[in-house]
């Protein structure tokens, strides 16, 4: 065996010497370049066309600017729009636009750009963003007015979305279906240089950039000349790349790696509040979960504190309802919040007729309490699901795990073949409740399969009949409380966004402004000289 190792090392060494040579010649060694790895949820973008894409990533937010920016505290800041005004009845919005802004193809940005762009959404999957905008009127070169079909208190949120990055109308019309695939033209601080789907996206600096938002320190062109975004499917590989210097910034570090990262002298971590929760939907149409007592018991069996402390090492927060804590509609009647109570769970199951059997599994009418627990084929999902499985066992429920790829999983939901599942979402707005609990979308995405009149009524009111922000909050809170009272899911955990970077290679601001790493931070990013 000794010989074996030696031979292997010899071959290794032979290759190695060539390896070192080529590495020194590689462009990554030059200054003013940064390599960034996308986070898990950002992987798989197929086009940088924000109008038609249903998945976008950080690179998109660097190519395009938005009219409005949102900060981590959910407040709004001017960007391409310098100011805005909503009419008293909510039926018109007027935006003043920034002067002197140019698209990367040399065409000017003005009110006409907006008037050309908004109608492009018609018939696309992203139409919901501009659904309430009836027409766009050009008042003067730098003033534009949205005439609304109904009040939309959520308009600023939509405008701050990365899907509402403003594209160059000239390029958009010229390229048609190919827009975003071969070329993408915005007003942002970086230009698209090359895009290999599934591999990498290379951006180069827009030297003319002089219209940064208040969220950046740097108001001129970016310091960094070139950014390579890499798609690394396996999060642990991405982590090793950061550790070994292959990438400089990691946009999403799984929480369980934080502990090891702390030991690395050259790695710094920035934590930001996350945009969603991890939870376990319960299919109400399939026994035993057609019984609300069993649903409640199941929700109470999940020990959020223990999961937070063991699986996530105390980073992040427990989830007790469906919305992230920073949303006002998350502030529900405390009695409706779900938290771990095994004793109560046991009582509820007894009451429902499920009595404890000898083997620790409850029985009713001779049948054991055995349920299906679905999860996704990814390390973090499998980990969390196995802990939940063990916790359900504690109340006498035998949950059998099946791991599916995401396409098959969706198919299972649509076939109503599921009972419990471990899932997560990323969306910092209350309208996520509509997406996951509307009776119009049973199976998927309404995995809980909940459909009743009261719920639908509350949903309609919250979605379309709120005139002001306050009303919208109150309406969503009422809908949220109703959903909680039906025990349609077990809330588990609110993750943080963890951005890790090599402090010997790049300098990032200590606090990241905005809801996530976007152009405002990329502008301030510097390469260590």
């Amino acid at each position, binding site marked *: *065996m000794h010989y074996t190792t030696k031979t292997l090392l010899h*071959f290794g060494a032979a290759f190695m010497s060539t390896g070192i040579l080529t*590495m020194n010649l590689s462009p990554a060694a030059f200054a003013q370049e940064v390599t960034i790895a996308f986070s898990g949820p950002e992987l798989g973008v*197929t086009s940088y066309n924000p109008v038609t894409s249903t998945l976008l990533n950080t690179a998109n937010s660097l190519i395009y600017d938005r009219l409005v920016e949102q900060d981590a505290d959910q407040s709004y800041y001017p960007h391409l729009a310098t100011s805005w005004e909503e009419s008293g009845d909510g039926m018109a919005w007027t935006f003043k636009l920034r002067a002197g802004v140019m698209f990367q193809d040399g065409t000017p940005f003005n009110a006409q750009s907006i008037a050309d762009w908004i109608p492009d959404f018609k018939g696309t999957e*992203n139409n919901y963003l501009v659904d309430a905008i009836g027409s766009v009127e050009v008042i003067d070169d730098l003033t534009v007015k949205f005439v609304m079909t109904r009040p939309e208190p959520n308009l600023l949120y939509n405008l701050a979305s990365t899907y509402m990055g403003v594209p160059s109308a000239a390029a958009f019309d010229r390229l048609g279906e190919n827009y975003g695939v071969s070329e993408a033209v915005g007003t942002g601080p970086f230009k698209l240089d090359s895009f290999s789907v599934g591999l990498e996206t290379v951006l180069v600096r827009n030297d003319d950039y002089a219209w940064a938002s208040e969220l950046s320190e740097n108001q001129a062109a970016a310091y960094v000349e070139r950014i390579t975004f890499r798609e690394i*499917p396996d999060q642990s*590989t991405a982590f090793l790349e950061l550790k070994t210097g292959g990438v400089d910034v990691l946009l999403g570090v799984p929480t369980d790696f934080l502990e090891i990262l702390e030991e690395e002298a050259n790695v710094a971590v920035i934590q930001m509040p996350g945009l969603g929760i991890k939870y376990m939907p319960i299919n109400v149409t399939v026994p035993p979960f057609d019984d609300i007592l069993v649903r409640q018991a199941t929700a109470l069996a999940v020990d959020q504190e223990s999961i937070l402390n063991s699986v996530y090492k105390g980073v992040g927060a427990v989830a007790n309802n469906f919305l992230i804590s920073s949303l006002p509609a998350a502030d529900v009647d405390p009695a409706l919040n779900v938290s771990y109570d095994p004793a109560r769970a046991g009582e509820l199951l007894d009451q429902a007729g499920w009595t404890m059997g000898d083997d620790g599994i409850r029985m009713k009418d001779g049948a054991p309490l055995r349920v299906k627990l679905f999860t996704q084929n990814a390390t973090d999902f499998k980990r969390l699901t196995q802990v939940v499985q063990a916790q359900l066992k504690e109340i006498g429920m035998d949950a059998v795990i099946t791991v599916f790829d995401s*396409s098959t999983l969706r198919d299972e939901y649509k076939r109503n073949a599921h009972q419990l599942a471990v899932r997560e979402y990323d969306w910092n707005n209350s309208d996520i409740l509509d997406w996951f609990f509307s009776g119009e979308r049973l199976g998927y995405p309404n995995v809980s399969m909940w459909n009743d009149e009261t719920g639908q009524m509350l949903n309609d009111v919250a979605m379309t009949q709120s005139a002001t922000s306050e009303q919208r909050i109150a309406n969503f809170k009422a809908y949220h409380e109703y959903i909680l009272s039906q025990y349609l899911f077990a809330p588990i955990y609110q993750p943080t966004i963890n951005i890790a970077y090599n402090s010997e290679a790049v300098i990032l601001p200590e606090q990241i402004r905005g809801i996530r790493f976007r152009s405002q931070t990329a502008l301030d990013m510097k390469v260590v000289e």
Partner: protein
Amino acid sequence: MSAFSFGGSADTRVQNGSGMLLRYTFRRLLMLIPVSISISVVIFMIVHLLPGDPIDNLIRVGSSPEARERLATKYGLDRPLITQYFVWMGNMFRGDFGQAIVLRRPVSDLIMQNLPFSLTLGGLAFAFSSVVGMTLGTISAVVRNPILERFVRGFILLGSTVPGFWLALLLILLFSVTLGWLPVSGAKTWSALVLPVLTIGFGGIALVARVTRVALIDVRHEDFVTLLHAKGLSRSAILFRHLLPHALVPVVTILALRIGWILGGAVTAEFVFGRPGLGSLLIRALGQRDFPVIQGSMLMLALAVMLGTLIGDILQAAMDPRIREASK
């Protein structure tokens, strides 16, 4: 009855060797047509047996049924399967692999983007296995040292028994994490090729070494070798000029026949090292149910395998003793 997998009948035996070989080759090339067509049918059926729908990856969670129908019509997914198949095949004959549904590009672009990575990786792994395997095989055939032979045998054994992905992980741990010599993943530099090539190539060493050894031991006792010895040629001259070229044919044959194994190893290596390539394209398309991409890349892989098998079989036929006898 002939020993060939496809065709071949008794009457061919009476012809001379090279004529037979030509005829065999021609026959095999002709066979490729029905085989490719049946493969395309099988691939098409497999793809449409997969649960799930590519449209789901194009639309938002809250999308309307009409939007879904519109997309299904756009990509022809609402047509009967048999029509879809003929449309696909019809386009294929014109060299059009179709348009990727989720990846929104021509499938041929995706294949051309990934193919060079697969060819480089596969080719280097092929070369690595051949060189190391033949060296070890020769040592174990020529050097009559029981201890050395045992070591070589151990090494060969190890190569065929270590799971590829596990070896890959250990290599990363040693060369990337601990020593920091080589990149963990990616395909930007040539250095990123080293570990994937080692991972795939290591598994092939065993096979090549075994074949080389057998081939060398077989020819060692043949008349012409005895003759060469008698002529006073040195042992190494005999080995390098006469014996090894003999061993090369069976080695290439066995590797050509096992091209599927190289491609399979590439899938694992591409996955672990996050490399682009046909394998990772296929895995990605499988996950997104991007039917045209799955079909296109599977067909490419199948074609590669068929060509490999064809070359291997022809080489094997060329070496068939009955053909050699017939040509005397």
